[in-house]
């Protein structure tokens, strides 16, 4: 409930440098060839994400934040620069199943029960049945869907379906979780609950998360670092370190520290917009 002063840990800059980089992008560029003229989606992106970070990519529509994440996930190929995931190329990282992806929509398969949806990646990776079921139960419990394993996706609400897709992404225990505006389609109350859930999961498991959003409060609430991007061509305007403690709850949104970070994000966004 209340923020324990003792547990407040500002991210120490010295210690940050010793944590291994999970994602390392240098001079990353992506240009689309369209019928009229080439479109620059990403322009010279330099970004390092370290283990245990919760990084939000925030910016207006069309700023390339989803594109950046898709490049990291090897769902798009860059046209310039380089990016490594855990020291490997994105393709190798994908083949090694180093990350889990959560889309804007739950993308659950309607012909599979919730449990079988969560075990889908595990089946593909050839895991044994007993272990698959054990993991599915564990991660469904973790996201609070313990009793719903046998239900079908259409029997669950939107928020519950999205939680199931998070459980699915976590079930094979990747180092990196990539989330593309996963709560965008939900109402605010559900969103708050899921944000809290997610930040607690992060604090518990210490995973590295990259989170795309266009909501400032959501970005500030969830992250340890916020990357503000500008509209086309997609550039990084600023990277803001959030000093908020790892263990946080919804009340933190009313503290002056929170408002200060939010203000800095807003200023950076406005600056980015004014380039247009």
């Amino acid at each position: 409930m209340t923020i324990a002063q003792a547990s407040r840990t500002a991210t120490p800059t010295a210690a940050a440098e010793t944590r291994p980089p999970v994602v390392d992008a240098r001079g990353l560029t992506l240009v689309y060839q369209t019928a009229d003229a080439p479109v620059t989606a990403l322009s010279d992106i330099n970004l390092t994400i370290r283990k245990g970070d919760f990084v939000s990519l925030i910016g207006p529509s069309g700023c390339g934040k989803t594109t950046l994440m898709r490049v990291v996930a090897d769902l798009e190929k860059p046209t310039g620069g380089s990016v490594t995931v855990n020291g490997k190329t994105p393709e190798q990282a994908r083949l090694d199943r180093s990350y889990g992806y959560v889309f804007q929509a739950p993308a659950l398969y309607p012909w599979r029960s919730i449990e079988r949806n969560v075990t889908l990646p595990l089946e593909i990776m050839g895991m044994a049945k007993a272990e698959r079921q054990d993991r599915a139960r564990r991660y469904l419990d973790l996201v609070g869907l313990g009793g719903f394993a046998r239900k079908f996706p259409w029997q669950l609400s939107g928020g519950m379906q999205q939680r199931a897709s998070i459980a699915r992404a976590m079930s094979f225990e990747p180092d990196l979780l990539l989330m593309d505006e996963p709560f965008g389609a939900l109402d605010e109350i559900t969103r708050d609950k899921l944000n809290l859930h997610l930040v607690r999961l992060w604090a518990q498991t210490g995973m590295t998360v990259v989170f795309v959003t266009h909501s400032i409060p959501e970005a500030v609430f969830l992250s340890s670092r916020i990357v503000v991007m500008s509209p086309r061509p997609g550039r990084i305007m600023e990277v803001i370190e959030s000093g908020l403690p790892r263990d946080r709850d919804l009340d933190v949104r009313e503290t002056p520290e929170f408002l200060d970070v939010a203000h800095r994000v807003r200023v950076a966004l406005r600056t980015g917009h004014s380039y247009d």
Partner: protein
Amino acid sequence: MGRALDSLAAALGLAGLAVASGLVTVARLAAEGPGPSTVVPLLITLIAGGSALVRLSSREGWPSRVATPLLFGLILLWGWEVVVAGFQVPRILLPAPSAIGEALARAWPTLAADFWQTFVRSVIPGYAIGSGAGFLVAVAIDRSPFLQRGLLPLGSMISAMPIVGIAPIMVMWFGFDWQSKAAVVVVMTFFPMLVNTLAGLAAAGAMERDLMRSYAASYLQTLVRLRLPNALPFIFNALKLNSTLALIGAIVAEFFGTPIVGMGFRISTEVARMNVDVVWATIALAALAGSASYGLISLVERGTTFWHPSFRK
């Protein structure tokens, strides 16, 4: 709840009354011919039946949904019988349902043999081979968008053509017996299955396909776990369509020449001999076979694609 039962009871009661007076009408017509004694039960049937229909059709729930078309069908049959008997319609023009039923019973051994020749020996193998081949070819060319873009327009074009026209050619190649009829069925069922399976395989959403890509799933895994289950509604669409086409194809192909057995053969020869009630009996048998196969496929469809939005209310 009491109210609902009430009105269902009332509707069913009216339906029962309609059935009873319908039977009375038919019996009196058969015994005495049209006259004053038949007018009263006739009117009762019409009024009771009509109001039962209106009541049943305004209710929800599956009993009413099943009872309404059933009652309607019964009234149609009754009307047919009454009109034929009442107006003394000549048998060769339109036999009464009772006459057809009698012909069915009388000629049963012959009709059963015809059914075996046409349905079991021509339709079923042709349907299985044609649909199977269509499915396999679709999966085979799934990896080649080039081939798809070439074959799909051809397939749609051929589906629009009067395929039954190849029956004489098949007879020339495979002889008079069931093989040529099965061949016609194969050609007729191949293209709808091909076109529908390709459409179904393409139907998986971009997000779902990206998901599989993020799992580094192989082509085979993506095919089996995502694209084939997703394609099932389309495949069943084709299977249902093909069941109709197969039966029509086999029967019409027999118009072009067949050994002295087969439903198409029976129809064309008995027509020439003006044994119209046997013809109708054959058609009734074909109708039963067609509806039963369609119903069976629909049941399997419901079982395997229960998750599709069109089945969820």
